[in-house]
């Protein structure tokens, strides 16, 4: 390693480690995405558990007309309250009171039509905004099963078999395992983790470039016996170290959070070991070189920390575009591997699907990121030594 790189890197890291702002950003961004992921998954798990344990309570109006239906509902674990709601206004009020998942109303002629073997109308009142779909589904299923049983009984009484009602029998086999199902899900989540590379080193990248101009220390620094390119490389490496450390902590935090969650309750599994995690990290590492290089190349043109921060927002917006492509669930294209961030996310999806990544694709992704980082550094070094830049420092 070039001696000057090391000197600048050492100074910038020491400076940044004393900067509460840089450390706060790093800590916050390290935990933000893993915590969001944990909260989202935990919420799904808890909702599932709640709906499994929760009693379904419905109200039936005109219950006396169908004692068998009531028995069916109670067999299915549905608690039935009998009410007397004669008009629509009373029904609406009862539904919006929210005590019941639904209200079943049997019109006055229900028993008569049922006995006459005519279609007997039955009303199911519910609120699709506030009700839980799973509960409504259960009630619906019981009502349909009751209907099927009735028709079976009637057919049998006419000497026909129920078999005639089911000419085709469909059986489904899903070979997805909890692990593979989780793969895609979690690859998308980890893909979002990658966005944080634009935050981890941002403060140090700005502070060591635009910050030098704001403090008016850049001219003196440029007048020292160090080449502009070495100065830039040292500053870039310092931001990259922050970025790489942040990404590592983020991956580890995400890994442990996924391990502590009872994912099997929602049909997922997290079976990534330390080796897989390291491979994921290694794939994403060139982004930790690209993001700070881009940030320094841009921030160098700003005269103040604030001005640089607004330019950074532009970088973030541009970076967000490829980041959301995988969420669209399109068929991956070859060129995806040549777009930083999108490439790394596609590789994560490959790994989730196939358990491995294509060497050529990984090399392309890493090569593109490294080449772009080098281009940014070359641009920044060129700027720093140009006379037009120097007369304005």
């Amino acid at each position, binding site marked *: 390693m070039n001696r000057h790189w090391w000197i600048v890197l050492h*100074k910038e890291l*020491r400076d940044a480690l004393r900067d509460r702002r840089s450390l706060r950003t790093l800590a916050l961004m390290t935990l933000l995405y893993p915590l969001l992921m944990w909260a989202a998954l935990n919420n799904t798990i808890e909702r599932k558990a709640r709906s499994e344990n929760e009693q379904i309570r419905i109200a039936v109006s005109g219950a006396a007309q169908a004692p068998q239906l009531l028995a069916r509902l109670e067999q299915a674990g549905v608690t039935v309250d009998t009410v007397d709601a004669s008009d629509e206004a009373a029904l609406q009020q009862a539904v919006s009171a929210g005590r019941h998942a639904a209200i079943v109303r049997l019109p006055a002629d229900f028993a008569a039509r049922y006995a006459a073997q005519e279609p007997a109308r039955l009303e199911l009142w519910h609120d699709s905004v506030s009700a839980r779909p799973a509960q409504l589904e259960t009630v619906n299923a019981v009502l349909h099963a009751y209907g099927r049983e009735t028709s079976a009984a009637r057919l049998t009484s006419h000497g026909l078999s129920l078999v005639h009602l089911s000419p085709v029998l469909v059986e489904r086999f899903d070979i997805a395992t909890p692990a593979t199902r989780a793969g895609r899900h979690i690859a998308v989540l980890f893909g979002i983790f990658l966005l944080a590379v634009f935050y981890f080193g941002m403060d140090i990248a700005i502070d060591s470039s635009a910050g*030098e101009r704001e403090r008016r*220390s850049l001219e003196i620094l440029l*007048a020292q016996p160090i080449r502009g390119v070495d100065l830039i490389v040292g500053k870039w490496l310092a931001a990259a170290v922050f970025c790489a450390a942040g990404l590592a902590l983020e991956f580890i935090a995400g890994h442990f959070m996924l391990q502590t969650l009872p994912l099997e309750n929602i049909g997922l599994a997290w079976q990534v070991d330390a080796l897989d995690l390291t491979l994921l990290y290694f794939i994403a590492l060139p982004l930790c070189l690209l993001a700070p290089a881009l940030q320094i190349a841009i921030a160098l043109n700003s005269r103040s920390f604030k001005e640089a921060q607004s330019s950074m927002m532009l970088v973030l917006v541009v970076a967000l575009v490829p980041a959301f492509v995988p969420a669209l669930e399109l068929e991956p294209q070859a060129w995806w591997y040549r777009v930083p961030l999108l490439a790394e996310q596609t590789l994560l999806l490959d790994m989730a699907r196939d358990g491995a990544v294509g060497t050529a694709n990984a090399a392309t992704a890493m090569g593109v990121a490294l080449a772009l980082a080098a281009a940014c550094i070359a641009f920044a070094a060129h700027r720093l030594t140009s006379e037009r830049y120097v007369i304005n420092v």
Partner: protein
Amino acid sequence: MLTFDNVYKSFGAVKALDGLEFVAHDGRITGLLGPNGAGKTTALRILFGLLNADRGRALIDATDPAREPLAARRRLGIVTDRVGLYPRLTTREHLAYFGRLHGMDTTAIADATQEIAALIGLDDIIDRRTAGFSQGQRMKVALARALLHRPGNLLLDEPGRGLDVTSTRALRTALLRLRDEGCCIVLASHVMQEVDLICDDVVVVARGRSVACGSSAELCARTGTHQLEDAFVALTGIEEGIAA
């Protein structure tokens, strides 16, 4: 020794230096006097190797900063009015950083730090972070930073700006000592009293050219005036740009 040999530098239509010519000798303090926009900062930046002359050349001892900027900068100590310190680093850490950039090892930096701290009087601030330093303290750090590698040539651009009497006197004492040790010192300023008091030679610069060189007394004699300020006005032919 610093030499400007017929140096020209333009930025578009603006002629910043228009044949600047003077020599600053070792063991002497040379004052570079000129109104705002006379070309002093451009001249210094050519010495740092940050700007290249269009024509002519500048030399630091025998080194041309346009050709060997790093070698040239090793021979220079620089103090500008833009002190530019890192608020989260201590004075000692500032000195270590710049010492290492100049290729000094840890022992050399420790020895030089001790020596410079005694020369400039840094003992009370040596291990303090520079955030909140007064202008005088900041200038002391900047001067120490410029002197740590013991350069043969020291360039100061408006070093007295914002300093109180004590700090100004301390700076003056340090500069005189360095001069006596053989250092070539160039002091760019437009504060007449400061230049008059400590400079052995004065170079008056106007519109990118050196219009007169000599001691303060010589300049007064040549213009038939009694004060450097009057001589300056007579030589530059302007009334404005003089801050006292």
